[in-house]
């Protein structure tokens, strides 16, 4: 595809990534040291005493309140993240509960999941992408409670997919038989969203 791309004369790479980062930047992405914020509406502020997290089939979900959720075994993970708006950030450090842990407690029940969030945001994922040590419900970033604009009290963290799948303000993972599109997926973003295959938009 790039063979047909016109050469932009006078355009040059401005930032050379160090050699040790070779292979860490997916196609079309650039590395940022900032942590940009992108969301479709106002940042919700849910009080912790009104917060809960649920997982499972609709109508028979396992639910934890904040204290119960924080008492679950957690993991510290350091991962690279990739936003569909083209930025990649290396070595982001999170603390959260592995979705494996949550599903072990609730029971695996369905091949797909829809994440539901405060503010009405949704996103869809295969359960296979939430298991096997690949996904967390994270409540701390860089050793601090996760800031509201970055998804606090808790957000989904699925770093191997574009970051819109790592839903901010997540409140439940609803297990389903069908891979129904979520919020951005309904607006033409890719149903799966693998940054290494540059699956930004439907049909990519």
């Amino acid at each position, binding site marked *: 595809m790039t063979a047909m791309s016109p050469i932009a004369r006078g355009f040059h790479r401005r930032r050379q990534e160090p050699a040790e980062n070779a292979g860490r930047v997916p196609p079309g992405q650039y590395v940022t040291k900032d942590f940009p*914020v992108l969301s479709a509406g106002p940042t919700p502020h849910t009080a912790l005493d009104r917060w809960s997290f649920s997982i499972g089939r609709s109508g028979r979900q396992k639910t934890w309140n904040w204290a119960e959720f924080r008492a679950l075994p957690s993991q510290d993970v350091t991962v690279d993240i990739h936003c569909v708006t083209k930025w990649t950030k290396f070595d982001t450090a999170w603390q959260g509960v592995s979705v494996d842990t949550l599903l072990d407690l609730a029971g695996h029940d369905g091949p797909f999941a829809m994440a539901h969030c405060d503010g009405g945001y949704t996103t869809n994922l295969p359960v296979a992408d939430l298991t096997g040590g690949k996904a967390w419900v994270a409540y701390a970033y860089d050793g601090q409670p996760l800031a509201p604009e970055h998804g606090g009290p808790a957000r989904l963290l699925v770093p191997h997919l574009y970051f819109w799948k790592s839903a901010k303000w997540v409140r439940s993972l609803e297990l389903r038989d069908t891979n129904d599109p979520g919020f951005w997926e309904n607006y*033409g973003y890719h149903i799966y969203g693998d940054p290494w295959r540059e699956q930004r938009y439907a049909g990519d």
Partner: protein
Amino acid sequence: MAGTALRRRLTWQVAKVSAVTVETASVRTLTLDVPDWPGHQAGQHLDIRLTAEDGYVAERSYSIASAPGEPVAITVERLDDGEVSPYLTDELRAGDDLELRGPIGGYFVWEPEDGGPLLLLAGGSGIVPLRSILRHRERTGSTVPVRLLYSSRTLDDVIYQAELDQPARGVEVIHTLTRQQPPGWAGYARRADAALLAEVAWPADAMPLAYACGPTSFVEAVSQALVQSGHPPERVKTERFGATGGT
């Protein structure tokens, strides 16, 4: 809203720059001749792809500045430490090729049937998609009342200044200049916050449809102020760009 789903595959194509318009010292509008443009909605964006002679490729997203039905245009602010924007604002000339695909996004959009009143809140180059909405309103003959609050650093940083000085009927434009004001400036001279919105925004009981676009700090401030003063969150659409969001 999900009914506006976009399922068509977005393919890269080569457009031609038909005009470069100087908006401010650091901002240019690029009008593009796109041979196979499927049409867009006011508020959508597109992706640009630049390929260097050595094969290096960079992609960025830019809001569409023109109304549906007008030639596609993007407005780009040069970020001095950026990689793509300096090329678009300083190197590109009328007649040059530019690879793009779009349109993208379907949430931060406005159609006349969405109604109003419209409360448009722009910080810096966040004005770009809101300008598309303003032009779309005018071209479709919509009469929904509009208030635009536009926050800029200085008067010289105001994009589309001449156009905004002659607003269409029913459109009020309110400027605030946060860093420096010209002598005799009678407008606002402070950051957009709850107090400023209490003076200029439609009250919550007018049920405006709000669109806020700009840097994260601006969008967080105005969207939180609206929600705290009783505006339903689902009537407040936001588009944020971080410090490096549009390089």
